[in-house]
């Protein structure tokens, strides 16, 4: 549909509605997420993940595994992690269709770089970023192979979708073929082949050890589950002090910092309003920002010296900005 309206979702306000929750494998559910008013969602590229803030306030990251040509839906898949911190348990046991969650990102720390050939290696739920990647590799006309490792087929999501790719997808279930011989499967570095890996930490560690001496850029790994995320995004209001204007404004949970600042009469130049263009960057003088943009890398996020107030919020009660 093309309404001719300025109908891109504004990420600072974006709540997504769970429009479908389906079983993708034993212990894995797939969620379809749409804008409540059916607007376009922010663009993304294969390898991207989004932050989901659950109604409980828990913030979790999941790779997007849908079709980017569908601008109106995101798809994620969630493994029930028995030892997890409660996010996946909530999604599996309590989250229902119709529930609203808040969105951060998308961000991409795992982009698909050009290559003549690709070897994709997915372990378990690590299949999620690989789905858009193989679609993209196909569109680019690259030669590719996917090794999909798992405990047993009934725990491995999306086997039905992958069947369409024929023998380019090699499914290796441990209960059928025993432990895989990763070193043999990966082999030696080839200048024309990039290797993408996503999965449990022990898989990543094994691959990284095998490829330790490889030329830079050939091995690309998504450190996905292992990364500890900071404090959860707060669901309560916070104060933003505007140092140059000598003002303090309260940012309600339902508004962006940008809106609150602009309501106070302080001008901030913006453009995309979805945390992708970087126009509204502001220097953080004090406080702990909750970065929800698609721009900053991990180091910059940790440093906390700047932020994008169109989408990013605060972990601390108070932020001081150079405005």
């Amino acid at each position, binding site marked *: 549909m093309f309404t*001719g309206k*300025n109908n891109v979702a504004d990420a600072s306000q974006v709540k997504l509605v769970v429009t479908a929750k389906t079983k993708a494998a034993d212990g894995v559910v797939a969620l379809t997420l749409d804008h409540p008013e059916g607007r376009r969602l922010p663009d993304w590229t294969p390898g991207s993940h989004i932050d989901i803030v659950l109604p409980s306030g828990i913030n979790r990251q999941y790779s997007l595994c849908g079709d*980017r040509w569908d601008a109106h839906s995101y798809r994620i898949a969630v493994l029930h992690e028995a030892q997890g911190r409660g996010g996946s348990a909530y999604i599996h046991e309590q989250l229902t269709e119709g529930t609203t969650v808040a969105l951060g990102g998308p961000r991409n720390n795992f982009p698909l770089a*050009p290559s003549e050939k690709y070897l994709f290696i997915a372990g378990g739920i690590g299949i999620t970023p690989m789905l858009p990647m193989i679609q993209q590799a196909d569109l680019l006309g690259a030669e590719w192979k996917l090794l999909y490792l798992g405990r047993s087929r009934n725990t491995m999501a999306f086997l039905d979708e992958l069947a369409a790719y024929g023998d380019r997808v090699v499914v290796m279930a441990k209960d059928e073929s025993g432990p895989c011989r990763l070193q043999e499967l990966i082999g030696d570095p080839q200048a024309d082949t*990039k290797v993408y890996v996503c999965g449990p930490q022990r898989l990543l560690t094994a691959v990284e050890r095998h490829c330790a001496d490889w030329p*830079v850029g050939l091995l690309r790994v998504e450190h996905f589950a292992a990364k500890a995320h900071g404090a959860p995004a707060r669901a309560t209001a916070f104060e933003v002090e505007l140092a140059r204007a000598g003002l303090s404004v309260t940012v309600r949970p339902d508004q962006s910092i940008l809106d609150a600042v602009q309501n106070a009469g302080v001008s901030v*130049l913006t453009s*995309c309003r979805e945390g992708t263009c970087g126009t509204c960057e502001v220097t953080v003088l004090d406080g702990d920002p909750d970065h929800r943009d698609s721009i900053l890398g991990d180091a910059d996020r940790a440093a906390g010296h700047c932020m994008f107030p169109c989408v990013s919020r605060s972990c601390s009660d108070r932020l001081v900005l150079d405005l």
Partner: protein
Amino acid sequence: MTAPLSTIDAPLSDADPFSYDILEDPLPFQAELRAAGPVVYLRKYDVYAMGRYDEVHAALTDWQTFQSAAGVGLSNFRYEKPWRPPSLLLEADPPHHDAPRAVLTKILGPREIRGLADAWAADAEELVEDLLAKGTEFDAVTDLAAAFPLRVFPDAVGIPKDGREHLLPYGDHVFNAFGPPNELVAKGAPRVAELSASIATKCARDVLTPDGFGAQIWAAADRGDITEAQAPLIIRSLLTAGVDTTVNGLAAVLYAFATNPDQWARLREDPALSRTAFDEAVRFESPVQTFFRTTARDIEIGGTVIPEGRKILMFLGSANRDPRRWENPDAFDLSRDPSGHVGFGFGIHQCVGQHVARLEAATILNALSKRIASIEISGPTRRHHNNTLRAWESLPVRVKLG
């Protein structure tokens, strides 16, 4: 290819947006275009056109429906051979667009370019001092708007000194070539081979300084984030899209201030307005006036069905003056929030160098506002005609120091 008129249900227009009169002053035509409807059919070129903000903004955003890979000019690459290897950024769609865009977004990001600010501020102050030492009357185009980007940008990319005089004519021709093959294109044609060859030599790894944007693009190729074959074309994009556009953006803001002295006074009171001032000038003047897209499917807009594979001309300049979106759109007003203007485009193709342009503009405006109390037009102004750019040939000004 031409559709029988009976099948076209959009309002028809016989205007030629690339004619002398409309290039000289596009505003009356743009008002007619917006009034005629959300989509208008331009008979002369057998293309559709959009002039209202909502539709232009939505089309820029919807890359799935409005493709760039068939060219963003009148020429449809599905049927016609491009006159040069297509841009990996401007004339590409996902997925091919992704990797070059990601690399350039990072290199030209606001934090990455912050390191240039001090040196550029010193350059700007020197340029202004030298200019004012010669007198208080000068040409705001040649002496400032062109002089400053040519002074700082080629160094930032890291290209050799030789042949920099080819940058502006090459860019001028590229932006003409997005339009129809009219006399503006013919005028540039004799030098195309020479200029293209000169620009190509500047993209090679071994001629670039080790610390500039160019070297960073080659470093991305070394990491495998882009291919070695892509690197020189991405540098070509910087050299093509990074000079004429900023020159005309700066000329736009200088002209706007020269004709709105009260706004200059406001900037002097609050120099932090320099960023807003530049974006307001980009909205007001829209240095890049138009780009084409090609429909990826049949699409209905405001009751008109545009068939798949057709060219659509989007009038960014008209969208930026649409009274449906902007209050008092014909005023250059620093109290306005120009956020959301489409002068840099929008969506995945939005100007990747916009932060560089803003830094250049803020830097030169800061240097000027420190020394100059007022600025006024002192002689006949002259437009430079280009099929895509709204440009100035000459803006004689007189300034008062203070």
